[in-house]
Every structure is written in structure tokens, then in C-alpha cells.
């Protein structure tokens, strides 16, 4: 009986422990496995491959971001540690009341929301006319690291009550000697943990970096964030895996070294050999710490960013773009061809880019923005007119896109399209009834009870409303409350049928066959088809939204000629091909019409014949672009969207 119950007890304990470990490490484990997936998709396993590791190391941008992350973290934590320890020395000498006051002052920034810290630091820089750059990020990181150092070092000082410092003075040591020989080793654990804490906080930080970085300065977190627009590439999984393994190795090694040292001390004590004093030799631990620092420095030097050092003849062009939204190799090609030096910087959404341009927190020469945002920027007088005389390649811009541009940039004075596409339905042809997806498909298919639980709808206000509006025959830019009421009711009616409301991961859910159909943008279709040949795309007969992302030049531009050269370059044949192959988004360039694309399903096809990329005229005729509705319109949309979401 007794053994039985204790055996059960033990089993429960082991199970419990296993469960904890499982939940702690499942996510990182998933990521590590996916990093070896030969497919781009997160949803399906398509065989082992080191492809993403290779891509990671050849991706200069990623490596530079990694370098920035490490150098900033290293310097910030070193400097913060020195400042923090000095502050602790001073605070330790204060009276209790004064010290607790300063500890309180120190703790407030820790409780402050990152966003408040980030914005206030940014505002201070701007107020004092300091332009945001690498140095400002470093400064901000030092600032937020100091409290952590003080927090972990101060208790060690308080534990020093056994007067070792005075004992050292008493034995003849000078104050400095006593500090380094006696106090420092005693508070070392606090310093090391403060340093490591700072280092991790710095590496982890996104918000503060985001607000204080200048053009072209990316850390891993800001780079990853900017890539969300097209979806995180598996190279990030590879990088995360490498970082995790390195951290694990360091932990294991440091534990090993410490264990070793203790062992040796025990042995020496046991053997009781005659001890001969050999002078002040330091132990292995100091050696290990020095080693770590040296390695970190080496890494830092190796990855030191090579930014504006090698300015070309014609100066620097600062490009502000959605993350991963051009073929990265084009930057080098452009630099070689034109002699400009390019600094790229990234954002995730139009809404993120807008305040940067509006407040002029960083000076960019050329930006990329979506149609409705271009409309807004024009109306707020934040853009410069383009001088198309300097952009001869604009002649290759497809005619059909020019018509759509009338809706947001009438007469095409301010913008030049980079990519475009439609919204439609991606479906799995092997899983749906064939006759449902004949020549003419209605948005109504998404309300078909037959496919209950297999439908994915967009999780954004305007795209979600667009689907229902089109089905009901209304404009997607309607501001009529009655129509809005109907649209919302329609969406509520559909709710029980929907598997998920998803944006970025709709593509992956479709590849993984979690659902039969999804509303998706045409740009994602070719990408998805690479991984799942059963996927097909259709634009419903009621029409849809056409979107355009355009190049434009903000008023803050300082290298106008460079900006013109950049836009012109993007319309060259080579650039258009490179971008298409990299993004698989439609590039509005007539030179691409007879470009032969190796389609996964149909085989070789001329691009103009691929409906996904080049929708036929009759479909386009039924399409609209997203309009900027102003604050009142936005309020109405979000009011109804909230109602729908809460139902």
C-alpha cells in the first residue's frame, strides 16, 4: 500500500515537472524545428533543409541588425554597469532617508511603461535638436539599463555590512585598492547579474529602440517587426535558433567552469598539502569572465555596422519602406549603377510610418506608402511633387493602374506605384465542390453553410467590411449609416461559419489545409501555391478592392535627385523582375508582360496571362480602391466593427 502510494506520488511529481518543462520549451522547440523546414510555411513540414541558415548568413541586412543588437546591448550594458555601480557607491554612503528617496527615484523608470520612456526620450532628443541615429539608440538603452544595474547591485552593497571595506583600510589598503580588491569581488555577483540583466533588456527591447532609432538603424526586434507586412521569413527562425543555442552554450559553460573551481577547492582542502602563498593570482572565474567579454567584443567588431562610412560620390539616399518589400540585392545594384549610397529603413504598417513623416523624426528621401495613405499625405501637404523628367522609366507603368491612381493621386503628381494587387478568395480546389468555383464566383460563397467552419475572413475593418459591402452591392467606401447597418448584420450572420478571422497567417492556414477558403490579397497567392499546389485564386464577380503601394517623396527629402534615381531604377526591367521574383506581388510594369514565369501549377506562362497577377479588364472595372474617409468615417467604421466583433 505504502510503496504503491509513494510510487504514484513520484509519478505525479515527475509528470508535473515534465509538464512544466514541456510548456516552457514547447514554443522554442517549435521554432527550432520550423527553422529546418524546407518550406516557407509555418503550417506544413516539407522536409529537412539548412536553406534558411544559408539565407540567414548571406542576408546582410539581418547580419547588420544582429550586429547592431549586440553592439548596442554590449556597450549599453557596460556603460550602464559602470554608471550604476558608481551611483551605488554614492547611494551607499548616504543616510538612510536620502538613500531610500534615491532608490524610489531609481525605481520609477522601471515601473514606467516602455512606450512612455521611448516617446519621452525621443521627444527630448528632438527638443534638443539631436537627430536620431545609432548614438541615440545607445543613449536610450544606457538610460533604461541603469536602474536595473542599481537594483541588482544595491542589495549587495547593503550586504557588505560586515565592514570588509574598513577592514581593508585598517590593514593599510588605500581606498581605491580596498574597493577593487575587497568590495568589488563581494558585489561582483550583483554587478554580473546587473550586466546580464541590462544586456537581455537591451537585446529584448523593441519599443524604446523603435522610437529612438534613426534612419537605417535596425536591431533584430525592429527588423522582425518591419517584416510582418509580408510575413516573418523562416530565416528569423534560424536566427532565433542560433541565438538560443549560443545562450544555452554560454550557460552550460559558465556552470561547468564554476563547478570545476569548487571541485578543485574541495580537493585542495581534502589533500591538506602544505600551502605556499603564490601572490595575488586570480581564479578561473575571472578568466572566464574576461574570455566572455573578449568574445563579445570580437563579435561586436565583426558585426560593426558599415553604415554611412562609405558614402558614394552622390551622397546618401534614405529609403523608408515596408519591411522586406524589395529584393534586398537591388540596393547594391542601385548603388553600383548610380553611385548613391542607400540606407534602408523599415516599418510594418502605414499607420506606423505616418507619424514619422508627419513629425519629421527622421529625414527620409523616398518612402513607400499605400494608396489611402498617399491620399492623406497629399492632403496634409507632406509630399513633394515628383519630377517625372528624371524618371524616364515611368513610361513602363501599366495603363490600368493609372486609372486607379486617379482615386488617390489625381493626375499622378506625387506618387509612382511599386506594387499592386486585388483582394479575392483563395480556395483549396481539392477540398471544395468544383461547381461552386466555376467561371463566376460570388462573395456569397463565404456565406455558404456547406463550408461552415472552413472559412477564413480578414481581421481588419476595411477589408472585412469590403467583402460584405461588395456582396450587398454597395461601395466599400460607403459612409451611409443604413448601408453600414446592413453590412454589419451581414457579417454577424456569417460569424458561425467562420473558422478564423486572420490577416497574415491566413496564407499559412490555407497551406496547412486548416480551412477551405480565405479572403487574401493576390500577392500572397503565388507564394502559397509554391507550398500547396491545390490552392487557387478567384476574384468574385461583385468586384473587389484594388490596392496600390507607391513610392513618394516626403517634404523632409534632402536628396531629391537620389530619390528620383531610386524610383527610376525601380522601374527598370531588372529591378521589376527581381522584385516580382522576390515578392511574387504584381509589379505594374509593362516590361514584365511577356516575362516567363515558372508557375507551379500551369508550368511556364507569360506573366500577362496569369490572372492572379494581372486581373482582366472586366474584373478591374468592378474594383475600387480604399479611400481615406476622414475621422468621422473612421469612427463610424470602427463603431460598427466593434459591434460585430462583440456579437
Amino acid at each position, binding site marked *: 500500500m505504502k510503496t504503491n502510494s509513494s510510487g504514484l506520488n513520484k509519478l505525479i511529481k515527475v509528470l508535473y515537472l515534465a509538464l512544466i518543462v514541456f510548456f516552457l520549451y514547447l514554443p522554442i522547440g517549435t521554432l527550432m524545428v520550423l527553422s529546418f523546414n524546407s518550406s516557407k510555411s509555418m503550417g506544413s513540414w516539407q522536409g529537412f533543409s539548412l536553406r534558411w541558415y544559408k539565407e540567414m548568413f548571406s542576408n546582410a541586412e539581418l547580419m547588420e541588425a544582429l550586429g547592431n543588437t549586440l553592439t548596442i546591448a554590449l556597450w549599453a550594458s557596460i556603460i550602464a554597469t559602470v554608471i550604476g555601480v558608481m551611483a551605488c557607491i554614492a547611494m551607499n554612503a548616504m*543616510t538612510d532617508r536620502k538613500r531610500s528617496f534615491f532608490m524610489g527615484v531609481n525605481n520609477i523608470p522601471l515601473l514606467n511603461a516602455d512606450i512612455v520612456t521611448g516617446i519621452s526620450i525621443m521627444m527630448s532628443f528632438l527638443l534638443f535638436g539631436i537627430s536620431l541615429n545609432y548614438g541615440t539608440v545607445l543613449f536610450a538603452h544606457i538610460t533604461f539599463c541603469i536602474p536595473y544595474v542599481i537594483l541588482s547591485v544595491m542589495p549587495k552593497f547593503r550586504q557588505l*555590512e*560586515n*565592514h*570588509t571595506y*574598513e*577592514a*581593508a*583600510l*585598517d*590593514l*593599510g*589598503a*588605500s*581606498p581605491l*585598492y*580596498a574597493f577593487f*580588491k*575587497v568590495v568589488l*569581488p*563581494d558585489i*561582483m555577483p550583483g554587478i554580473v547579474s546587473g550586466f546580464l540583466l541590462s544586456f537581455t533588456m537591451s537585446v529584448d527591447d523593441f519599443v524604446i529602440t523603435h522610437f529612438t532609432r534613426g534612419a537605417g538603424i535596425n536591431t533584430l526586434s525592429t527588423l522582425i517587426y518591419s517584416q510582418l507586412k509580408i510575413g516573418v521569413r523562416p530565416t528569423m527562425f534560424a536566427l532565433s535558433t542560433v541565438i538560443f543555442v549560443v545562450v544555452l552554450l554560454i550557460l552550460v559553460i559558465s556552470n561547468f567552469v564554476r563547478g570545476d573551481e569548487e571541485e578543485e*577547492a574541495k580537493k*585542495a*582542502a581534502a589533500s*591538506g*598539502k602544505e*600551502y*605556499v*602563498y603564490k*601572490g*595575488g593570482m586570480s581564479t578561473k572565474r575571472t578568466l572566464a569572465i574576461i574570455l566572455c567579454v573578449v568574445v563579445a567584443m570580437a563579435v561586436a567588431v565583426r558585426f560593426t555596422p558599415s553604415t554611412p562610412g562609405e558614402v558614394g560620390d552622390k551622397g546618401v539616399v534614405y529609403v523608408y519602406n515596408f519591411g522586406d518589400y524589395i529584393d534586398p540585392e537591388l540596393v547594391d545594384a542601385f548603388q553600383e549603377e548610380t553611385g548613391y549610397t542607400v540606407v534602408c529603413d523599415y516599418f510594418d504598417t502605414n499607420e506606423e510610418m505616418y507619424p514619422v513623416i508627419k513629425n519629421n523624426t527622421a529625414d527620409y528621401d523616398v518612402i513607400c506608402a499605400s494608396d489611402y495613405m498617399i491620399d492623406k499625405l497629399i492632403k496634409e501637404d507632406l509630399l513633394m511633387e515628383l519630377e517625372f523628367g528624371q524618371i524616364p522609366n515611368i513610361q513602363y507603368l501599366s495603363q490600368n493602374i493609372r486609372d486607379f491612381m486617379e482615386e488617390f493621386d489625381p493626375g499622378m503628381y506625387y506618387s509612382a506605384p511599386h506594387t499592386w494587387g486585388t483582394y479575392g478568395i483563395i480556395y483549396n480546389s481539392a477540398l471544395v465542390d468544383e461547381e461552386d468555383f466555376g467561371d463566376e464566383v460570388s462573395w456569397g460563397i463565404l456565406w455558404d453553410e456547406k463550408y461552415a467552419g472552413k472559412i477564413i475572413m480578414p481581421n481588419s475593418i476595411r477589408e472585412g467590411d469590403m467583402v460584405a459591402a461588395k456582396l450587398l452591392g454597395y461601395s466599400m467606401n460607403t459612409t451611409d449609416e443604413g448601408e453600414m447597418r446592413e453590412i454589419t448584420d451581414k457579417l454577424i450572420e456569417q460569424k458561425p461559419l467562420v473558422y478564423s478571422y486572420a490577416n497574415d497567417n491566413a496564407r499559412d492556414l490555407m497551406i496547412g489545409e486548416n480551412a477551405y477558403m480565405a479572403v487574401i490579397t493576390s500577392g500572397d497567392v503565388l507564394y502559397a501555391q509554391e507550398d500547396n499546389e491545390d490552392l487557387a485564386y478567384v476574384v468574385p464577380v461583385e468586384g473587389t478592392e484594388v490596392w496600390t503601394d507607391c513610392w513618394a517623396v516626403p517634404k523632409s527629402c534632402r536628396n531629391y535627385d537620389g530619390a528620383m534615381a531610386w524610383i527610376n531604377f525601380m522601374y527598370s526591367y531588372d529591378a521589376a523582375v527581381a522584385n516580382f521574383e522576390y515578392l511574387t506581388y504584381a509589379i505594374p510594369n509593362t516590361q514584365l508582360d511577356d516575362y516567363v514565369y515558372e508557375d507551379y501549377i500551369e508550368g511556364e506562362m507569360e506573366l500577362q496571362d496569369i490572372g492572379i497577377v494581372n486581373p482582366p479588364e472586366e474584373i478591374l472595372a468592378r474594383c475600387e480602391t480604399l479611400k481615406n474617409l476622414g475621422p468621422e468615417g473612421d469612427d463610424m467604421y470602427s463603431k460598427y466593427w466593434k459591434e460585430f466583433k462583440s456579437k
Partner: protein
Amino acid sequence: MAKEKTLIEMIDISKSYDGEVVLDEFNLNIKENEFITLLGPSGCGKTTTLRILGGFTKPDTGKVLFQGEDITDMPANKRPLNTVFQKYALFPHMNIADNIAFGLKISGKSQEYINDKIKYALKLVNLSGYEKRSVTSLSGGQQQRIAIARAIVNEPRVLLLDEPLGALDLKLRQEMQYELRRLKNELGITFLYVTHDQEEALTMSDKVVVMNQGYIQQMGTPEQIYNEPENAFVADFIGDSNIVDGTMVEDYVVKINGYKFPCIDSGFGKNKPVDVVIRPEDIEIGKPGQGIIDGVVTSNVFIGVHYEMCIEAGGIEWLAQNTRSFAVGQQVSIGVAPENIQIMNKPQSEDEEAISLEDVLGDESEGTPEEL
């Protein structure tokens, strides 16, 4: 004991923290090769005195002379004194040998000299072979001995010890007391010892300085301090005492609660209120009617060497110690031999509780201090 040279003089030292006076015009002379103990309750200023000597605290006013030379402003690391701290203050990240070698290394001694000294010091504190041990692997008593070894290898003229045995258990403390005495005799250096433990002070010292509230209350040999306390504070602080109000009826007669006791004190005048001190072991317990007052035993505790009893007699609760046991409730009488009654003037004010400088300087070499 031959009269020796004065080594350290503390002259008119005052020190206050945040307006609270810790030392007030404090004066002390320390002679060469003396074991002198500062004794007093916590907060009496004894540790501050030591810290001023060690150079860790600067006095607000006054001077510290070392062999006649003013060292008041000399930094701690330049003073020819070494301190053994209350909680040992060993360097935890160094092994025993490194701890002991610390001071020697700073003074630039040769490797060979250092090795010899370490060996010698460890032998002196009975810890030979402990060189490579880590500090944390030692017991409290061993750590304390290492702390002493670390201080004495530097051959200081004076060793300052700040309650060095406070953290040890009773048995270890007693062992260490003998150990310290032995060391002092072997090394022939001056020990200035700070403690709040009166037994420790009486056991080890050549001279005891009883302090309270920044003033010296009494200074003298352990016997003088114990047998002839100069005021109620000293009497109360040194050992257990019955301190009761009395009236000096005339010379050699003191009245306590209406009962007359013969004593050997004189010169107080007639009907003068005084404090009367009677040590518990001096109370003689007998059959009712045999002593001076009759009473009843109210409690009885066996504490090893003797029984400690409370006796209610003449409206006063007396603490008495006796090797014979008297049961609780038993009718007894108490009496005291005249020479065991100590009569003291009642203090008129706080200032009078302290001994003035002249008294101290005048009394210290003669032995028997006069009543105030």
C-alpha cells in the same frame, strides 16, 4: 605592575550623529602593553570611541595622540593600529592565506616573509594547515581567530577589538577569552577591547572602563569595578545587584525601609538619602529572627553553581544567591555583613553621574577611588 608609558591619549573627544551626542568631551589614556576594556550597554559610545581610534570616524572636536603625535586626521590605512571587527570582516572571496597576507602584501613584504608570517600567525591561533581553506568553510570561532591572525601579522602597536566574541556561543566564547589573554601575553602589544558583556570584561582586562551615554562612569581594575561600584549604573551593569533606596542615619548605619543595617561607610552626613548596593551572593539567609529582616521565599531557581531566590522581606523583593536551597513559601530571615554593603550618593543630575576628568586621571593609578 611597573608604570608604563602612555601610548594613546584621547583628549576632549566629542561626537554626535544627527544632533544626538554619542561622546561628550571624552578623555582616555591607554598605556603600553595594557589590556583595556570599554564596557557599556549598546549606544554608550564605546564602538564610536574605537572607530575614532581606528580612523573610520572623525571626531567633531578633540584630538587623538599616538605617542604624543596628533593622528586625528590621519587616514585609517596609515595608522599603526589594527582592528578586529565585530563580525570578523574576513574577505570571503579570498582563502585564509590570502586574507592573512592582505596587509603584508600592501606593505610590500617579500614572499618568503609573508609565507613565514602566515605560518606563524596560524600556529599562534591554533589553526595550522588552514591556509587554503575558504573563509565560509570555517566555524565562527575559527573565523574569529583568523581575523585576529590577519590583524596581528602586521605587528600593530595596538590591537582594537570590537566585540569580537559577540557572535560566538558561550563555550567558544570562554575558550576564546583565554586564547586572547594568552595571545596578549605572547605578543606583548596593547589590546583595546570593546564589549557589552561584563563577565568578559572582568575576566580578561587589566583595566575596565565602564561607559554610559558618552561618559565614563568608572575606570579601574576588574576587582574595583565589581566590588566598589561608584554609582548605581555601574553596580547595576556589573553583575546582578540589589540596588535599594536607603538613608544614611549616621556614620556606619544605613536605614532601608525602616530597618537599620550596620555598614562600614562614613562621611555622608546625617539622614542623607543614598543608594545601597548589595550583591545577591552577599545576602545571608537564616532562620526567622536570626537576621535583620524576616521574610518569605517567593521563587527559587537552580542555575548550576547555586540557587537563585527571591525573598520578600521588609517590603522589598531581594535577589539572593545561595548554595543551600530554601523552598518557596519558607519563612526566612536575611542579613548582610557590614563590609558587603556598598553605599553610594544619589545622582543629582546626569552630569554628576559621570566622573569628571580630574577624578579619572587622579584615581587610575592609585587603585581605590574615593566616593563622590
